């Protein structure tokens, strides 16, 4: 939906080194105006450092950050057209809500009347009307976060930076805030750049996600592409849950491909893979894309897997572990070759979880467009 828009932030070959440690390693990416951009990665991957360089709290060792066409190399944080919501919220403890939210406006010399109006408007936006005189220590974590949000939004920045915005909230509130943040972003039309280590957060809020690993961009894509078309094993494994098997490419034509996985069996794909014939590759298969059967339902199995030639995309094993999560049940199944594969099965009826139990022999199949072939 944001295709074709001008980049509001251009990151050009940016590296950041702290002594011998390279936190950010030659990253280049564009963030488009109006999008909800998420930097996703494990802790210590450099995503927060990148965010802090956009805010101006860290200077790049190499490279250039351009915001709205202006090089930020010599621009201090207080002169940048961006505002940040800190992980700790950083709400000023000695000021009430009104003074906190109005702080930036007062500093920049906005008139009292306008400050009052804009503060009221911002508090309305984050649903904090009526909290004007509260002190921060009389508020919950979620409310303080709203103060921090309002305090940044009231400045009408070109870009709003959010550092792990939901990490300190409990699970229910986090889910609610995910929606509210996305909704808010839609309403104010400001570009949001969020840092998170939580893949659910990234998938649910982002228009595009940059997965960062060891200071480099592992993949930059919309959430669904990230999940369904991961570019490498790191992304496949970090975003969601996945089974990965090593194999060898035996067939690669424009409309079909086959991989021989010693651990899993013969894999057939209904599309080509641009990899060298005979190359070592990895097969990534999501647990929810595997169908589980009682052995002997052979016909049904073959009918379901009809898009694959006989003997492909099928596996047998024994259930070695189960965990019932309510909406789905996870099964850890030991394959005939000894490997463990994880399968998730939705509990479509109230009794579905009773169909299989420990040590049951089961068959599995998957569609020819389900496996992803990874070259790295």
């Amino acid at each position: 939906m944001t295709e074709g828009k001008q980049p509001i932030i251009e990151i050009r070959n940016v590296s950041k080194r702290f002594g011998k440690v390279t936190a950010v390693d030659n990253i280049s990416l564009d963030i488009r105006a109006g999008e909800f951009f998420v930097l996703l990665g494990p802790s210590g991957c450099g995503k927060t450092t990148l965010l802090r360089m956009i805010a101006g709290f860290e200077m790049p060792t190499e490279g250039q950050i351009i915001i709205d066409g202006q090089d930020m190399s010599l621009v201090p944080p207080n002169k940048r057209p961006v505002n940040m919501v800190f992980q700790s919220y950083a709400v000023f403890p000695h000021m009430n809500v009104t003074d906190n939210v109005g702080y930036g406006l007062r500093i920049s010399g906005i008139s009292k009347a306008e400050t009052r109006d804009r503060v009221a408007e911002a508090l309305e936006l984050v649903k904090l009307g009526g909290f004007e005189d509260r002190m921060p220590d009389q508020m919950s974590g979620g409310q303080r976060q709203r103060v921090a949000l309002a305090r940044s939004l009231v400045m009408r920045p070109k870009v709003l930076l959010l550092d792990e915005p939901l990490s300190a909230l409990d699970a229910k509130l986090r889910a609610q805030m995910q929606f509210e943040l996305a909704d808010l972003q839609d309403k104010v039309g400001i570009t949001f750049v969020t840092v998170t280590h939580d893949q659910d957060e990234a998938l649910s809020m982002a228009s595009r996600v940059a997965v960062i690993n060891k200071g480099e961009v592992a993949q930059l894509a919309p959430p669904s592409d990230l999940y369904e078309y991961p570019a490498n094993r790191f992304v496949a494994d970090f975003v969601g849950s996945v089974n990965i098997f090593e194999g060898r490419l035996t067939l690669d034509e424009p409309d079909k491909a086959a991989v021989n996985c010693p651990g899993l069996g013969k894999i057939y794909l209904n599309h080509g893979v641009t990899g060298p014939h005979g190359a070592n590759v990895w097969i990534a298969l999501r647990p929810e894309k595997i169908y589980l059967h009682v052995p002997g339902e052979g016909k049904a199995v073959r009918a379901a897997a009809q898009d694959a030639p006989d003997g492909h995309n099928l596996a047998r094993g024994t259930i070695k572990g189960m965990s019932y999560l309510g909406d789905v049940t996870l099964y850890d199944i030991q394959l005939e070759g000894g490997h463990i594969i994880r399968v998730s099965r939705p509990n479509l009826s109230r009794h579905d979880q009773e169909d299989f139990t420990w040590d049951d022999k089961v068959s599995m199949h998957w569609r020819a467009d389900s496996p992803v072939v990874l070259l790295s």
Partner: protein
Amino acid sequence: MSGALQDWKSQKKPFAAVATAPVFWLGLFFIAPMTIVWLYSFGQNAGPADIDISGTLDNYKRATEWLYLSIFLKSFAVAALTTLICLIIGFPVAMAITFAAPKWRPWLLLGIMLPFWTNLLIRTYALMALMGSNGYMNKGLGGLWDGASWLRTLVGMQPLEAWTPVQLLYNNFAVVLGLVYVHLPFMVLPLYSALDRLDKSLIEASLDLGAGHFKTFMKIVVPLAAPGIFAGVMITLVPALGAYLTPDLMGGTDSQMIANVIERQFKRANDWPFGAALSFLLIYAMFILIALQSMRANKVKEAG
């Protein structure tokens, strides 16, 4: 186990066992002698070694005469100036330690605390050696003077007169400088502990919202460090007010502080009742200061 020890109200015996010794100690060596001195302040000399506690207020009347009151006021002014200078020097020092790399912080703090472990007398004499007519300060100033004189001859001007050492010691300046030197750690440590607790992202948030470093300092750092500032002021002001050694050694004839006057009553004048009255006036003044401080602290607690 921790529960049993925590609730001393229900476990009176172990608490009493632990508390007896310190209470006894305080009673015998602090409260009792202080009470005796306090009683002396209402007495009069009845002989070379005899004090008759007659309940007279003459000592207090004499202590509030202008001669002594002016020394009180002057002591207060000197202590206040010392505290102010300590605050002005100590704040940047405390901030520098707070923002230093973590591996340096313990060493910097050690540098602040090191003087504590050296005898005050030795430190004071060392400072005097530095500031004397033949000390390094005067030698340094003399060197600069000679250099300036030489530069003047280079451009064809008359050389300056010969350097006459500056009288740095035995005046009020020396007293304040000595007091600042001695009391600076008392100021730096509470400031450091307040600044160290300050969430650094608050400073970043202020910068992020468009405030410069000075505005951030005035609107965020100072208000949030206020408890540390007040603690530092009190902990510097109170001992500086009762300073004895520094004015005695480094001051001139006009720089005696109230503690020097008190000492003279107890020793040379052998007028213990009057000395006691002066002492307790000083103690009352400190009580008032401490009461003001704790009232302020309570107010802050209620407001927070």
